């Protein structure tokens, strides 16, 4: 995973709450076995409407999505994150994210930034009025800066460190192989097994 320290870019505002993963990437796209190429499917049904905000030429190249609350609700499909990153988004700003989506984003190199609803509303107005406006998502300082807005956001130290270093989660866990083996020895023997092939 590429390290994420700070990102500055233009943004697009999606003025909807409860944007579910079926909208972010419809299930037709889930049949693919690759990890790339999902950008074309991002919001594909909504994008058929020429007036949909992502189709606005002034928002081309936006790398930050400002969204309503409960963004990413619905299924566990990480394809939603792959679609957003493949399209070019580096961060999503919302008052609230669905848990699984948030977790998937933190694995997939898309920064989910939770800010108070009034701040998100201010950012939404800002990018709608001025599509050229730049937003900075500074992970090192845990701060969002745009126009007159300077707002800090929360992210635990461990996750922040992992993202800033671009570390592979699996590699980190495998360092604790002894702990895992020790735990496995203590597991009750009546616990079920699937009987591997």
């Amino acid at each position, binding site marked *: 995973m590429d390290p994420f320290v700070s990102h500055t870019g233009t943004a697009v505002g999606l*003025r*909807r*709450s*409860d944007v*579910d993963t*079926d*909208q972010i990437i419809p*299930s037709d796209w*889930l*049949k*693919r*076995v*690759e*990890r790339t190429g999902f950008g074309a499917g991002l919001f594909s*049904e909504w994008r058929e409407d020429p007036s949909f905000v992502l189709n606005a030429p002034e928002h081309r190249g936006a790398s930050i999505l400002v969204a*309503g*609350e*409960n963004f990413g*609700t*619905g*299924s*566990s*499909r*990480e*394809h939603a*994150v792959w679609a957003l990153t493949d399209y070019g988004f580096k961060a999503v700003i919302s008052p*609230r994210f*669905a*848990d*699984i989506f948030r*977790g*998937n984003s933190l*694995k*997939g190199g898309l920064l989910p930034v939770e800010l108070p609803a009034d701040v998100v509303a201010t950012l939404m107005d800002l990018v709608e009025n001025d599509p050229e406006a730049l937003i900075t998502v500074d992970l090192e300082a845990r701060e969002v800066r745009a126009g007159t807005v300077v707002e800090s956001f929360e992210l*635990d*130290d*461990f*996750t922040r460190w992992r993202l800033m270093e671009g570390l592979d*989660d*699996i590699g*980190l*866990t*495998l360092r*604790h192989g002894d*702990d*895992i083996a*020790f*735990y*496995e020895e203590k*597991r*009750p*023997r*009546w*616990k*079920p*097994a*699937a*009987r*591997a*092939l």
Partner: protein
Amino acid sequence: MARTLAEKVWDDHVVRRAEGEPDLLYIDLHLVHEVTSPQAFDGLRLAGRPVRRADLTLATEDHNVPTDLVQGPIADPVSRVQVETLRKNCAEFGVRLYPMGDASQGIVHVIGPQLGITQPGMTIVCGDSHTSTHGAFGALAFGIGTSEVEHVLATQTLPLPRPKTMSVTVEGSLPEATTAKDLVLALIAQVGTGGGQGYVVEYRGDAIRGLSMEGRMTVCNMSIEWGARAGMIAPDQTTYDYLQGRDHAPSGADWDAAVAAWDALVSDQDAVFDKEVVLDATAITPFVTWGTNPAQGCALADVVPDPQALPEGNARDAAERALGYMGLTAGTPLRNIAVDTVFLGSCTNGRMEDLRAAATILRGRRVAPGVRMLVVPGSMVVKLEAEREGLDAVFTAAGAEWRSAGCSMCLGMNPDTLKPGERSASTSNRNFEGRQGRGGRTHLVSPQVAAATAVIGRLAAPSDLTNDSAESGQ
């Protein structure tokens, strides 16, 4: 210190705890299906990593499988490649797979409990948000993304922050003719789509205790629809009775040891939840959704709500957009809404009790002219059992289609989809825009409401049916 059920199960699985880091949690069972696993297996291959515990991993084919034929290759080439990829991956990494046509194949959340491999006190994950279903047994079960699928395959663990806990106490008993599905739909309408975010929820109270295992699964299944990380119900005699004798359930002395451990899986009397919600079961009546998220629902006896009556802001905007998408007008009685399609199935309501309840209503009646009804059992075992009981004959005599096991129209990845503008009454769990097919309109309902709706052709409860079997078409 007094602990909640969720905390007990969590603590039992902590492999490693370090200040300032997420807990490393051991995973007892990893369920796998074709949609969210290919990229994870690819990741393993790239890094040269094996599956750490193939014996704690179980795979099935469910999302893509056509349900109108058991044998033969899948016609859709993209779906076929995905299913074949799962087969190759399972063979390569030594993972047990129940493929299409196998007697144990079915929807991942239906087969786990049915095999008895879902047990109290376990940690269970799957690359699927409705993994919460397994919480009905007092397991801590939750959906994960593909990166986490890869992580579990490689390490049999997950690093996770400790969740907050919530109790939902459903007091009183459910009125007759009201189901677990009505209960959970009413709950979600009360707490909203994000009400459970960040929480592991424990469902308790008399109404929950009174539910069968299948009803409990329906409730836990929909935990994710109000944002909860997981839903759990403490195991009790109902749980043990369901489990005992199943394929993977412990037996003999192991059974006794297991039950002794399971008996401790209750929230301590003075355990503190981070949040508590109370719901009155006695007030719940058949419930349906009118909008495009599962919280947009109301009693079947009500009318389509007026967005203008909602406070200005998100909820009103969302309601207005939903009515536009659903093609509904505020003030319309829900019972006047005509449907083209009725879908009975999914991991929410595709089990024996659901099929039996619907068959009881359809026996001697006909599906209304112009209405298509699909009955899709949640697993092959459910299918065969239903056929032994003659339920398939009831459904086909009523004019419904009897299918093989799979997710089917729950999400329309196989050929079973709604056409643009078509409207369904569906026993599944999501009424999102396009969920059942582009432009399709979904009303979430219980199996009983689904069956009555099929007969009348409009959203209806069994109480709307007369004894006259010539009801259809009116």
